[in-house]
């Protein structure tokens, strides 16, 4: 049994031809890709260079690292400065600037900050270092929240006393609803995040679709992304709006119920601050009372300040909301580069500005 090929270049050319045919029936289509991994793949494949000029792909707030507040990063850095603490994080967070500093710089100055690929690694590190306090930086959307939730359940079960989770998980559908309520936005359709959808299923998107937006749940292989664009263009051309699941090999209509149950056993929904956007109601997760001994925010009295302080001269907020393209920001590629980023969009591996910088899309 082998995986099927979703990278065939012949099929890709045929889809691109079809997109060109459909595009002749459309004046302009502004399609928002709400997933940082989509932004990266679209850039990596050079897709913008082969789309017809009236099909415009906009990068939305789909980069969980980009939208993590500066004060969260500042707090993480502060926690790292305690010699008794070990900060455990995904690689994505290392270079993101907070207000003045980054975990990378803190590490260079001697803070014990370790990069891992799973919250389960934080549990092992806690067991191996009984004299230290281990703090896991739990960021990400609904794709990652179940992993954190399960790790919290396991940590409680194993009665691990020296581990806590600093949570800043965010939810995608509330962000989409906030976007479509913004009168300045000109979006025709959405490419929906395939792996978030694998967890949450189809129903959380119904409100967005019913508001008149064609939506396609899209995977990450070349054929997935191209067919996602083709299907949205087709709906736009026919002035229809519906939800199409283009990633059905992974996304079930009900999502992953076990994962969702796990998430809502551990977390409550709360308001959350999205860097560069502001507070989006009911768009974040916080640890429930019965797991509060594992909540780093409570243990270390760290409150993620509900502010939206961005580094000076940074227009990440406008980029994230799809209001401007990265290369229209006056700082882009001048005072703001991946080596010296002003804001998270430039430093995150999926940041819209980093993708533009790297691939010139």
């Amino acid at each position, binding site marked *: 049994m082998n995986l*099927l090929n979703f990278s065939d270049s012949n099929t890709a050319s045929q889809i691109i031809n079809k997109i060109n045919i459909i595009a002749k029936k459309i004046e302009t289509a502004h399609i928002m890709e709400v997933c940082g991994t989509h932004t990266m793949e679209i850039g990596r494949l050079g897709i913008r260079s082969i789309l017809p000029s009236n099909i415009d792909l906009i990068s939305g707030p789909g980069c969980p690292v980009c939208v993590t507040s500066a004060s969260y990063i500042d707090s993480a850095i502060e926690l790292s400065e305690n010699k008794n603490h070990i900060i455990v994080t*995904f690689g994505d967070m290392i270079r993101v600037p907070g207000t003045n500093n980054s975990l990378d710089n803190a590490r260079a100055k001697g803070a014990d900050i370790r990069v891992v690929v799973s919250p389960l690694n934080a549990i092992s590190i806690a067991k191996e270092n009984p004299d230290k306090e281990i703090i896991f930086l739990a960021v990400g959307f609904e794709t*990652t929240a179940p992993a954190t939730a399960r790790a919290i359940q396991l940590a409680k079960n194993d009665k691990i006393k020296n581990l806590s989770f600093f949570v800043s998980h965010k939810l995608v559908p509330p962000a989409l609803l906030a976007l479509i309520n913004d009168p300045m936005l000109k979006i025709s359709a959405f490419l929906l995040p395939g792996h978030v959808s694998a967890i949450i299923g189809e129903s959380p998107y119904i409100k967005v679709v019913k508001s008149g937006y064609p939506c396609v749940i899209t995977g990450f292989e070349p054929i997935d992304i191209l067919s996602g664009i083709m299907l949205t263009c087709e709906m736009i051309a026919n002035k229809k709006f519906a939800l199409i699941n283009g990633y059905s090999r992974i996304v079930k209509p009900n999502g992953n119920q076990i994962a969702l149950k796990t998430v809502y056993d551990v977390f409550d929904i709360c308001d959350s601050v999205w860097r560069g956007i502001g507070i989006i109601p009911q768009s974040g997760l916080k640890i429930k009372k019965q797991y509060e001994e594992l909540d780093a925010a409570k243990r270390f009295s760290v409150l993620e300040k509900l502010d939206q302080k961005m580094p000076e001269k940074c227009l990440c907020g406008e980029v994230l909301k799809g209001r401007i393209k990265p290369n229209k920001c006056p700082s882009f590629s001048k005072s703001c580069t991946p080596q010296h980023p002003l804001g998270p969009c430039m430093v995150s591996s999926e940041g819209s500005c980093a993708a533009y910088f790297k691939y010139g899309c």
Partner: protein
Amino acid sequence: MCLAVPAKIISINGTNAKVDIMGNISFADISLLSDINIGDYVMVHAGFAIQKYDIAEAEETLKLISELLKVSGEK
């Protein structure tokens, strides 16, 4: 977000599965899924299997795409 890769289950030990990603061996916690068997493909993200890869659906998707491509541009 977010990066997940298709991985083949090669052994299972309780909730921990050994997975093969094109010659690279890693581990995935399968407690977020049910009815996982050796030989299944799962999507692995942050050390967890988050969904099963449905080969039959994959075939359907490709078939559907090729049918859509056959339909002419005129409506």
